[in-house]
């Protein structure tokens, strides 16, 4: 395939593209070519008849393994039903041949039935997890085995039925069974099947299958319906299996239930695991393995199942991905081909982004939400959300963690999952809530995801291309231009896992823009990016604004957000609380306090002398998840008997710091120093109670985990129960799921106390609680502090932390921006500043006023 390109700026990707397409033709020709060579060799008579028969069988098993293998590798469906489809084809052929059916009728009947059953299994299976699909397909094979054994009028029962010759109704000749002609036919068919698969490999069909398999939700967001994909995939795979069955009847000349047992299903799975799921060559290896494993086992003097089991286990342990992948990697290492490190990444040209002015107030309204409410079970995630977006406008939505921002985006893209949505939403005048998630892409809505949900098994280029149903040269061109624009051209044929997080997020955005949406939805696009990447992203957003694209964007990185937004809406507790321009929204006291919180009354904390010994000390600690930096150069000392507050917006690195202080998360760099006998306990964010366990059992498990047994356990249980408020004490036998959020928080703290910790770390204790409950939880934490407990409090709200702690540090993007004591009169102003932009202006003398 030639690529005609009008643009001249994508040399790298264009050469990659033509390489890919040329190699596709070569690969597609390989199968038939190998088959032709094999046929010539067979024709010379150099292979003895029995071996020729085996070659025919191997060809059939290659087709069968191919059908199972590609279904597993591309669609993610591991089928145990294929022996049944194999049998379907074989019995169709044998029965038809003895009842005067023509060749065409047999082929049409067998493939038609297989496709119908396959589509049913695929569609039903898409609703379920992998295990349910296993049961569903297992059931299919079990039932087919019974039918084969019992429906003696058709199948001949255990005796089986003979296969006669098949005549073509169109006068194409006659197929004799059990002879060289059948063997040749099988070999030829295998060659063609491999060619078909090789052509399908670089097609949109495979990309969309793989996309739907690896990330159903992201697939929906680009218009791919996983159910339809898996129904189609299963139907095609079943057709191939049935054709293999017809060939089996022809080659063997006789059909009985023996070959179609569950043992075959397991053998097929072994063959796929051994060859490598999703690889064509793997199917050939698998087919050969199935054919010759009995001979090999016999000559090695072991029972065949033992050989099969050992091969299966060894393949899983030592060759994950299969023998073909392993050999390919080894070969590359031996040949020392320079590993395809990306050359110098081509960054998009530097240009300082211009602000695009907001559209005129008269601009058309593009999106209108009215009184949207979302409930998950009994939990209200969103209520009374009304807002509108004009064409070309960029709307930013801000709010603390749990305010309902992501839920709102999911309403727009139709990915609310199990939640119930009420209210109305209109996009370009059309009702949005009634259209399915997969249809919204066509309406012109594109979105990105918080964690850049790309398709890991597709290359960067394919991630963008799979948005199209059929890929034309023009599409490839446009995709190449798009990648070029995002500075991704140099990694077009790499996989997302090889990319640093920044490029990963760029790819997510490129995919959302592949079909030039009218409304672009961005879920925390700035999160986790460094300054350079953030500047690049800002330029991309500005570019879209210049094109007139409307943008809805949520994020916690406010300065970057405000740099691109025309208008800002603030949310808290699932409803809008304020609206304004980016420069003024934080002046709204309600918005400000939703972030910073109101300082409670400052309880008396035990006095400190400043000479207390340290409980834990962190020395220049860095932490990164994958390539994403969560903490940078954090140095911190927690003194015994003190209450330390760690404050920061969502994503600032608080929970990571908590886990490192707790000792359960080893830092990537730097050291944690703590006394050997220091007992620490962590109350995780969101409580993390065992919901199905009773209150008492939640406490019991914590003590058991701390190695406490018997009478001591009962004593501690009684003691901690006394610590609980009366309304919890009366319900010790009830499941924890029945508690309110505040009660859960108190119980979670009590659970941590069961281990009698010296250091207690509490992560966001106020999250999702009503103000009254927050006060009660904080009163309890204060009492623990007065009793001498060392406490680290991870808080989103600066005000709350300031009222409850001896000392506060403010985290901004993983680094400590400010530290100080709330008693210091200048501290709060400094901390507030640092909370939003990470700047500490303490170096500048603050005028006293």
């Amino acid at each position, binding site marked *: 395939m030639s690529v005609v390109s009008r643009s001249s700026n994508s040399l790298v990707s264009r050469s990659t593209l033509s390489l890919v397409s040329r190699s596709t033709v070569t690969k597609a020709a390989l199968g038939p070519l190998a088959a032709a060579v094999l046929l010539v060799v067979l024709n010379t008579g150099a292979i003895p008849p029995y071996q020729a028969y085996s070659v025919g069988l191997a060809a059939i098993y290659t087709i069968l393994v191919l059908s199972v293998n590609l279904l597993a590798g591309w669609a993610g469906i*591991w089928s145990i039903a294929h022996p049944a489809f194999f049998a379907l084809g074989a019995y169709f052929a044998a029965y038809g041949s003895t009842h005067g059916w023509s060749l065409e009728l047999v082929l049409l009947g067998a493939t038609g039935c297989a496709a119908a059953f396959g589509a049913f299994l695929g569609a*039903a299976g898409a*609703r379920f997890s*992998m*295990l*349910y699909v*296993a*049961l*569903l397909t*297992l*059931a299919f094979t*079990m*039932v087919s085995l*019974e*039918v084969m*054994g*019992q429906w003696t009028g058709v199948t001949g029962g255990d005796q089986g039925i003979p296969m006669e010759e098949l005549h073509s109704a169109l006068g194409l000749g006659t197929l004799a069974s059990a002879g060289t002609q059948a063997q040749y036919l099988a070999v030829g068919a295998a060659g063609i099947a491999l060619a078909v698969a090789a052509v399908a490999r670089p097609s949109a069909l495979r990309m969309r299958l793989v996309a739907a398999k690896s990330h159903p*939700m992201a697939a929906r967001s680009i218009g791919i319906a996983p159910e339809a994909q898996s129904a189609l995939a299963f139907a095609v795979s079943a057709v191939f299996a049935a054709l293999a069955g017809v060939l089996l009847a022809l080659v063997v000349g006789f059909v009985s239930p023996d070959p179609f047992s*569950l043992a075959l299903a*397991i053998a097929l*799975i*072994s063959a796929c695991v051994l060859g490598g799921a999703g690889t064509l060559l793997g199917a050939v290896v698998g087919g050969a393995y199935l054919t010759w494993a009995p001979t090999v086992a016999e000559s090695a003097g072991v*029972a*065949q*199942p*033992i050989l*099969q*089991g*050992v091969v*299966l*286990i060894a393949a*899983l*342990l030592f060759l*994950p991905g299969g023998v073909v992948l392993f050999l390919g990697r080894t070969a590359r290492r031996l040949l020392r081909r320079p590993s395809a490190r990306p050359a110098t990444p081509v960054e998009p040209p530097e240009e300082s982004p211009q602000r695009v002015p907001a559209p005129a107030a008269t601009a058309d309204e593009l999106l209108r939400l009215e009184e949207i409410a979302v409930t*998950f*079970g009994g939990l209200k995630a969103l209520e009374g959300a009304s807002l509108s977006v004009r064409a070309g406008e960029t709307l930013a939505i801000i709010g603390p963690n749990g305010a309902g921002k992501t839920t709102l985006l*999911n309403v727009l893209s139709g*990915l609310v999952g*199990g939640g119930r949505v009420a209210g109305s939403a209109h996009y370009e005048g059309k009702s949005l809530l009634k259209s399915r998630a997969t249809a919204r892409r066509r309406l012109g809505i594109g979105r990105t*995801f918080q964690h850049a949900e790309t398709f890991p098994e597709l290359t960067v280029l394919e991630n963008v291309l799979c948005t199209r149903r059929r890929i034309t040269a023009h599409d490839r061109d446009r995709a190449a231009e798009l990648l070029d624009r995002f500075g991704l051209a140099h990694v077009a044929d790499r996989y997302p896992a090889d990319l640093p997080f920044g490029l990963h997020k760029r790819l997510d955005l490129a995919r959302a823009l592949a079909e030039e949406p009218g409304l672009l939805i961005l*879920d925390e696009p700035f999160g986790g990016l460094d300054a350079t990447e953030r500047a690049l992203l800002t330029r991309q957003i500005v570019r879209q604004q210049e094109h007139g694209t409307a943008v809805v964007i949520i994020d916690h990185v406010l300065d970057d957000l405000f740099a691109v937004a025309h208008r800002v809406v603030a949310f808290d507790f699932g409803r809008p609380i304020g609206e304004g321009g980016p420069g003024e929204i934080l002046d709204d006291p309600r918005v400000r306090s939703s972030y910073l919180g109101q300082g409670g009354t400052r309880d008396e904390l035990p006095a400190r002398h400043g000479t207390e010994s340290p409980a834990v000390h962190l020395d220049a600690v860095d932490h990164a998840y994958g390539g994403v930096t969560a903490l940078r150069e954090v140095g911190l000392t927690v003194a015994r008997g003190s209450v330390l507050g760690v404050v920061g917006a969502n994503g600032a690195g608080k929970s990571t710091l908590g886990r490192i202080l*707790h000792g*359960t998360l080893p830092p990537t760099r730097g050291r944690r120093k703590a006394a050997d006998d220091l007992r620490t306990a962590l109350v*995780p964010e969101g409580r*993390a*109670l065992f919901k199905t*366990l009773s209150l008492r*059992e*939640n406490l*019991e*498990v*914590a*003590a*058991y*985990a*701390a190695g406490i*047994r018997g009478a001591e*356990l009962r004593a501690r249980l009684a003691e901690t129960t006394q610590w609980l408020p009366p309304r919890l004490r009366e319900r010790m036998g009830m499941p924890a799921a029945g508690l309110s959020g505040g009660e859960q928080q108190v119980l979670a703290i009590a*659970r941590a106390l069961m*281990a009698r910790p010296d250091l207690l770390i509490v992560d966001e204790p106020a999250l999702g609680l009503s103000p009254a409950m927050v006060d009660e939880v904080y009163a309890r934490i204060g009492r623990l502090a007065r009793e001498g407990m060392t406490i680290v409090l991870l808080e989103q709200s600066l005000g709350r932390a300031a009222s409850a702690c001896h000392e506060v540090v403010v985290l901004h993007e993983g680094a400590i921006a400010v530290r100080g004591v709330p008693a210091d009169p200048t501290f709060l102003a400094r901390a507030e500043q640092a909370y939003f932009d990470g700047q500490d202006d303490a170096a500048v003398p603050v005028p006293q006023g």
Partner: protein
Amino acid sequence: MDQFLLILVSGLASGAVYGLMGLGLVIIYRATDVVNFALASLATVGLYAALALNERGLPLLLAAMAAIVTTAAVGLVAREAVIRPLAQGELLSALVMTMGVSLIAESVISTVWDDQPRLFPSLVEGSVSLGSAAIPAQSLLTIAVAAVAMALVAYLFGRTSIGTAMRAVAESADTARILGLGSQRIARIAWALGLGLAALAAFLYAPRAGLVPTVLSAPLFRAFAGIFLGGLTSMYGAVIGGLTVGVLDNLAAGYVSAGYRDTFVFSFTILVLLIRPQGLFGVRTFQRV
């Protein structure tokens, strides 16, 4: 009526066997995320060992203990050798791995012993007459022993600290780790317990079915149907699902056609799952971005 009573009792006896095996599967699955396909063949290894010991003069009751211990021990060795090296959460690899273990175990049995059918002795003989129906004593024993075993399991999980800890790990391994609960210890206990229950089921089933290397594969598949029916993660569901499958299976054999019992059982299970994907006792989970 008498025939119905007979079918019902034998259905409950089969169901008790499926329920015990299903309970074993669910206990292992909840604690370790492994669907243990090798459960049946490992229990069969235990049975052959018990038979060998019994033939050398060990009383049958002690031989039953030996079957349970052997099965649990072989299973633990297999887990340490081939399942633990796999990465966490590799559901499919673990399932396929246990298929491999199962192939090897069955083959070892036919090599060490042979695959000729053998008789397996029963603790009780004869039948109990109830009205005009003669109910096999073995069926009643099966139901009684299974009921006691299930009650013990319910006690273990409901009333002891270790049982509570196992339920906690099953609900959230992450939270359990934060509390400092070692999941490997819990996993080993779950494997031993699950396999022990399977060996007990096998011991109750073998006198009726006779002993061949694949004696337990049919009950294993019906136990699978039972746990899916029950919701995959629910222990009550496993027992009730197993009993349902057992009774259905025997009703189909008695009143419909002996040749189509699997068709009947599996069609019923799939139909129920199409209507209620989470099974009878499973919990529907919400999906979120």
